[in-house]
């Protein structure tokens, strides 16, 4: 770990800048300067996802509930991020089989198809980037994916968003068009993304509260929700949410330098 922090950052360790948390914290701070956001917005994401983890016995944070007060009492790591703004560090594995629709119809589980996908990679290193507070690659990637799918965000039943940090979830949903810049806190408040919420997000607990499996955490959860294999956290009557037909998922890499958006549908 120490070698990874020391050898991969060019000369950034000279100034005490280490790792992804510090890079995303730079992005989040600039966003706080440009529109209304900050811990008061991100607490809804950290706490909301933790509620989903309580319904998922495999989640690292199962049986570890968190309140808004717990969030504010958590220690600073790289300010403006507290510990619960950061994803988990864990071992584990995930796999997803992609095959033809024809072959999939012969298998035990129900069919989930890819309606649309898009990528956009602004690439510029965070030190020179001026897109850290949006629009990030999520804007163009989602435009491509939604156009291919022939739908809008109004048609989406749930989201599985790559959540390396709480801010990543906010800027991704914002760039996808679920709310306008600075309106995240209002959109998220009242349990929007939680069990019984109107737009469930990261229904396994996500990488903040279930497990970090890179882009496989959102992908496998999206597929399994549409297959109806999620037990106590299953979208639909079990969690008093809309039975899902369409789920939008994301992945992103480096410090917001690359983004993938894909839209899944239950056949």
């Amino acid at each position: 770990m120490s070698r990874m922090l020391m050898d991969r950052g060019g000369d950034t360790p000279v100034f005490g800048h280490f790792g992804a948390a510090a890079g995303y914290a730079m992005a989040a701070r600039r966003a706080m300067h440009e529109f209304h956001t900050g811990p008061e917005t991100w607490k809804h994401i950290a706490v909301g996802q933790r509620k989903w983890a309580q319904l998922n016995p495999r989640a690292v944070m199962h049986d570890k509930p968190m309140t808004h007060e717990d969030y504010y009492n958590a220690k600073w790591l790289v300010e403006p991020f507290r510990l619960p703004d950061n994803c988990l560090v864990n071992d584990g594995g995930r796999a997803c089989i992609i095959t033809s629709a024809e072959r999939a119809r012969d298998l035990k589980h129900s069919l989930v198809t890819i309606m649309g996908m898009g990528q956009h990679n602004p690439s510029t290193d965070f030190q020179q980037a001026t897109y850290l507070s949006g629009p990030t690659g999520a804007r163009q990637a989602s435009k491509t994916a939604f156009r291919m799918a022939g739908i809008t965000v109004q048609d989406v039943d749930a989201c599985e968003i790559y959540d390396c940090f709480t801010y990543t979830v906010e800027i991704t949903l914002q760039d996808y068009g679920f709310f306008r810049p600075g309106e995240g806190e209002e959109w998220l408040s009242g349990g929007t993304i939680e069990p019984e919420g109107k737009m469930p997000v990261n229904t396994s607990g996500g990488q903040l509260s279930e497990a970090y499996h890179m882009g496989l955490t959102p992908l496998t959860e999206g597929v399994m929700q549409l297959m109806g294999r999620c037990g106590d956290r299953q979208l639909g009557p079990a969690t008093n949410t809309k039975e899902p037909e369409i789920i939008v998922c994301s992945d992103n890499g480096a410090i917001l330098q690359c983004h993938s958006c894909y839209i899944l549908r239950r056949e």
Partner: protein
Amino acid sequence: MTYNKPLPKINADTKEFWKGCKEHLIKIQKCGNCGYLRHPPSFLCPQCHSQKTDWISSTGKGSVYTFTVNHVAFHPAFQEDVPYVVAVVELEEGPHLLTNIVGCDPGKLRCDMPVEVVWDDITDEFSLPKFRPVV
């Protein structure tokens, strides 16, 4: 006193920059073809791909583009500094520079605050450009 923090790793691209720092100058690459200013140093221009490169000296003035307050020392030598500030400073000339902000209560720091360079002579070989608020 021994300096225990990580030192710059000089390579063909960064050699001229760190040599400038030793003379208390922030040297920025200027494309010899299109004039684009770039940092960190690289062997070709990201705008026009020309390898023709000149160097200019920055005034050492700029503003805070963004910053973090680091409460955990991921390298033991930074333990004595926590909480310390790492910032991206936008130089007057345009390019951004990763650095530290010193001489300022982290709680009073704001994005877009004007700052100026202050040199930290850490070893016989290296001086680091750090920044402080313009008073």
